[in-house]
């Protein structure tokens, strides 16, 4: 069977079969599971590419090793969604030097020794959420912010973007807590907020599970009707579902870029020029537009 | 006279642990209405034989008959159902549980699965009453003195109304009056036609209660004989394969100058409330002298030694001088540096690290000297251990063996070796011969003679009266933390010691 493999590999060099290595930093988050699913779905449409997934389990050193493994296994193209910028810059550069094109997904690496970066802008999304909420509440109201891990760049950007978005409006963040992206923690923190404050007009959670947890807490307290819940990510089975079920008022898509990555990969493998940076647009889902698949920001 | 059919009979018993055969073709039978003593050196296989009968070990060759029926008990429960109850040598009590719970462990009285605690307590009081003690049955066993624990263990076996009752060294921690009560009980059980299997290393007990004796040596059956045909010297010869001239070979002592002087020494218990465990004791030991301390359970003798050794830290208070220089000991480390050594009374719990080798144990208290600059010298350690091993006549396959794999007597020797290695001036010996066979006992006595002749002072605690009387040059008797009597070798008799131990303050604190 190793003969077969070699034949396939030889065929790959002959540009009708390609192996793509995908190094995912962590499959503990649904969003990243979705990213892998999107990649796989897109790749399945093309019989001439095979995609091998590795999961670094949130460990930078493991991810470095994965990149090295892919290089030594001689994949035709590498897609990486890095856990960290700095430590993965060098392995990615080495892959490029070894002649393997690299697509960096979602989080960047430093410098410009990669082929293409595809990602969305968390800060813009946070800003949009803030602006949307200010408009929805008529420029005044008390907001609870349930933050993801502030150690992570998305958490940080979604926070600072939101503050920019509500700057100048009468919106006031009265309670902010770290819910570590986790739904049970979000519910716990919301419980506390509800106990402390008799008026809460809106909840802005850094992800949809957080918003959902907050909703459940408010529902248990009988106050869910008075509160506007906004989340981010808009995965089909999470945020979009919650909006469709009337749980969240709005969710902002944080696109995985899976389909775009495969698209770009095919273009690179076909020898076409691709832009160095592709910024993915986000979509807003509300009760009004969820049936139509949301609307672009 | 015993009836002609044995109540329990074992024949052709073979048993091995891993590659080692520990029982080879052993036979043993016990009749109703007799006390059958099982004797032999440490590691002869007595406990193993008994555990086979009790269903603890079930992979053995040979046959067991109880009441003429072939049986093969596969668990303690099965054995108990066949009428065999065992008082184990290593107490099978759960320290953290109450007396009542311990007595009914394994077979509680229940009502639809729920434990009937009230009934337990009532029956527990009755059972313990038979043994002449009335402890609070709700107290945790760990809070009881070791003697009472042993009585609880005995009561636990008696609860089952068994026809064969095995007692594996039941008196190793009992005081004289408690032993008396146990013997009375044994007579009573005997009269009911039950069979008693009795294991002990104490010769005077064998002399008193044995009807018949079976001797094992190195896992082999040496013989079975009625007790009157086996006087002590002959019994000893059967057990260790040679003769021992005198059981207690105390040489003529030549006491030197005063080595240790203690004044108003007290040890308080942890809460610092209640009576002190040791209450303003004063005594002195000369070099080359063995000072015996007599006393019953709770006399405070062990605590006195532990306190002198620094084991209680600041809970021990008082003045002491060693070689006329003041002694302010805060920890065992200080004590060892000053040339004091303490052989504790429980080699497994406080004496040895069973998971370490003989060498490691023997050098543990003297590591500082053996490892200059902190760096160990394995070869030097081995040599030191070998020298001690020869001096103590230690029997072990290799010095690299784990201490836990040795028999009790040899373990005791390793513990002694540890202290000899420190070159002590003063040896505190707390029950140095507990659970040790006659041969080894004799060797330990000889060693004590050697040490005193070299000018070492010894304080000896022992619960065996003959040993105390024969080995001590002077005897101090303690009762509830206080010294009640001081006796010279000539004055000391069993009666006087016992009387003082029971608290009768004596006038003649002379000598």
């Amino acid at each position, binding site marked *: 069977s190793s003969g077969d493999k070699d034949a396939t590999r030889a065929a790959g060099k002959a540009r009708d079969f390609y192996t793509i290595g995908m190094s995912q930093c962590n499959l*503990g988050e649904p969003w990243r599971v979705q990213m892998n699913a999107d990649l796989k779905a897109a790749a399945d449409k093309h019989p001439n590419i095979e995609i091998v997934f590795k999961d670094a389990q949130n460990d930078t050193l493991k991810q470095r090793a994965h990149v090295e493994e892919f290089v030594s296994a001689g994949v035709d193209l590498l897609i990486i969604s890095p856990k960290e910028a700095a430590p993965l810059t060098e392995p990615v550069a080495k892959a490029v030097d070894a002649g393997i094109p690299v697509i960096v997904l979602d989080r960047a690496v430093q410098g410009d020794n990669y082929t293409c970066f595809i990602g969305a802008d968390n800060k813009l999304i946070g800003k949009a959420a803030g602006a949307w909420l200010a408009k929805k509440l008529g420029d005044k109201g008390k907001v609870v912010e349930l933050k993801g891990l502030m150690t992570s760049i998305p958490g940080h950007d979604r926070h600072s973007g939101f503050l920019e978005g509500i700057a100048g409006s009468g919106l006031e963040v009265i309670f902010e*807590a770290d819910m570590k992206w986790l739904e049970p923690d979000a519910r716990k923190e919301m419980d506390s907020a509800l106990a402390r404050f008799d008026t809460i007009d809106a909840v802005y959670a850094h992800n949809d599970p957080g918003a959902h947890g907050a909703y459940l807490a408010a529902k248990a307290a009988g106050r869910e009707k008075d509160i506007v819940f906004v989340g981010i990510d808009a995965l089909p*089975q*999470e945020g979009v*579902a919650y909006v*469709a079920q009337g749980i969240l008022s709005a969710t902002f898509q944080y696109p995985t870029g899976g389909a775009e990555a495969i698209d770009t990969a095919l273009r690179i493998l076909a020898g076409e020029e691709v832009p160095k940076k592709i910024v993915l647009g986000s979509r807003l889902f509300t009760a009004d537009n969820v049936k139509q698949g949301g609307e672009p920001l | 006279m015993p009836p002609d059919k044995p109540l329990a009979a074992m024949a052709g018993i073979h048993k091995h642990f891993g590659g080692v055969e520990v029982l080879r073709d052993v036979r043993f039978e016990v009749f109703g209405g007799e006390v059958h003593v099982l004797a032999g050196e440490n590691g002869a296989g007595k406990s193993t034989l008994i555990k086979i009968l009790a269903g603890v070990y079930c992979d053995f060759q040979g046959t067991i008959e109880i009441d003429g029926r072939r049986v093969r008990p596969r668990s303690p429960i099965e054995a108990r159902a066949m009428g065999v109850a*065992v008082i184990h040598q290593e107490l*099978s009590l759960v320290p953290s*549980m109450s007396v009542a719970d311990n007595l009914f462990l394994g077979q509680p009285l229940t009502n639809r699965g729920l434990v009937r605690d009230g009934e337990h307590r009532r029956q527990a009081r009755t059972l313990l009453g038979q043994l002449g003690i009335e402890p609070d049955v709700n107290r945790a066993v760990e809070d009881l003195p070791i003697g009472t624990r042993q009585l609880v263990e005995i009561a636990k076996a008696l609860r089952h109304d068994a026809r064969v009752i095995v007692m594996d060294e039941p008196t190793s921690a009992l005081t004289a009056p408690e032993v008396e009560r146990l013997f009375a009980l044994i007579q009573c059980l005997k009269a009911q036609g039950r069979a008693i299997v009795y294991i002990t290393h104490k010769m005077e007990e064998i002399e008193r209660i044995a009807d018949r004796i079976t001797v094992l040596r190195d896992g082999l059956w040496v013989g079975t004989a009625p007790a009157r045909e086996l006087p002590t010297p002959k019994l000893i010869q059967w057990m260790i394969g040679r003769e021992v001239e005198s059981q207690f070979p105390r040489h003529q002592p030549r006491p030197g100058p005063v080595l240790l002087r203690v004044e108003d020494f007290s040890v308080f218990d942890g*809460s610092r409330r209640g009576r002190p465990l040791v209450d303003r004791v004063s005594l002195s030991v000369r070099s080359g002298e063995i000072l015996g301390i007599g006393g019953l359970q709770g006399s405070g003798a062990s605590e006195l030694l532990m306190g002198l050794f620094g084991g209680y830290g600041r809970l021990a208070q008082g003045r002491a001088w060693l070689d006329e220089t003041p002694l302010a000991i805060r920890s065992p480390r200080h004590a060892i540096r000053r040339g004091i050594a303490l052989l504790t009374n429980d080699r497994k719990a406080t004496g040895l690290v069973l998971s370490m080798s003989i060498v490691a144990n023997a050098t543990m208290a003297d590591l500082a000297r053996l490892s200059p600059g902190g760096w160990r010298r394995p070869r030097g350690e081995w040599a030191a251990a070998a020298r001690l091993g020869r001096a103590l006549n230690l029997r072990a396959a290799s010095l690299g063996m784990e201490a836990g794999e040795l028999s009790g007597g040899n373990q005791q020797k390793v513990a002694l070796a540890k202290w000899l290695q420190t070159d002590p001036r003063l040896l505190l010996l707390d029950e140095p011969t507990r659970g040790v066979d006659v041969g080894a006992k004799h060797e330990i006595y000889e060693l004590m003679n050697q040490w005193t002749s070299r000018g070492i002072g010894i304080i000896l605690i022992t619960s065996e009266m003959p040993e105390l009387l024969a080995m001590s040059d002077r005897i101090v008797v303690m009762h509830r933390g206080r010294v009640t009597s001081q006796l010279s070798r000539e004055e000391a008799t069993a009666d006087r010691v016992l009387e003082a131990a029971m608290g009768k303050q004596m006038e003649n604190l002379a000598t």
Partner: protein
Amino acid sequence: MNTSERTPLRAIATSLGSPAGRALVALLLVLVLGGVVNAEGACFKLGPHRGMLRQAAVCGIRACGMTLVIITGGIDLAVGSVLALVAVSFSLMTIHWAWSAWLAAPLALAIGAACGGVSGTLAARLRLQPFIATLAMMVFARGMAKWVSGGQKISTAVQNADGTYRYVDVPGVFRAIDSRIFGDNLSVVTLIFLACAALTWIALARHRWGRELYAIGGNEEAARLSGVPVVWAKTLAYVVCGVLVAVAGICQAAQEQQGDPEAGMGYELTAIAIVVIGGTNLMGGRGGIGLTLIGTLTIGYLDKILSVNAVPEAGRLVLTGIIIVAAVLTQKRRRW
């Protein structure tokens, strides 16, 4: 804390003196802290207490199971991931396959029992160290949870064959478990917790099996010599722990309205902390459900106080560490 408070505390500590008394002191310390740092008087409203009870309930159920195992001298590191496996399986059965709760719940409990049974067999019959046996089960069950769920949360958004989603209703059993009774004042999960605690209390304190567990934890060899069916009793402790964890998993799924394969990370340490803060000894042989109840309240209130006062993550962790030590120190049995 000022001096006038300290004296009665001392009095209580001395008068009770028992493990329970010492555990109560730790709880009191935390409550005093809550009274002192008390944003907008939250301590004197009903909400936080009610909320605490609900949150603590699921922790408490796990801690009850852990108590059983710890009393035998063991430990169960697998509670978090078994919880996830059960939550995922239960959600799958009730939400995706729309099975009746009367069928799904026993099956979910059986999954918990099976995981416990494997851990128990490894620890009791094959005599692996419980730490390592349940560590393996922890990894294994997490993998199973991910495998069963395909790595996704099992929620009311069900994927069709064509990749689109349809939304199903939250099953009635989820709503029932997540509801409140008695004028909205008592969560059903709190009731379930109390029921679990009562049952384990009876088993431990009154049933012969409980007595056997204490004996095994206190001195396993003695228990064996006394005719206690050690292997069986010990295995059963892990099985019952698994069942209790399954109950907690069902409750958690109901509260989240979904089964999350990532749920329960780090729960094993919380459960152990609760048991130990209550005063049960990790060496085995001592402790009880009453103590675990107190420990549940202590940790629950600590969590709640930090959360109500919106203490930032870093401060929260630092304080939790300090308070755990303080709590355990207050209830240390004095030696000399």
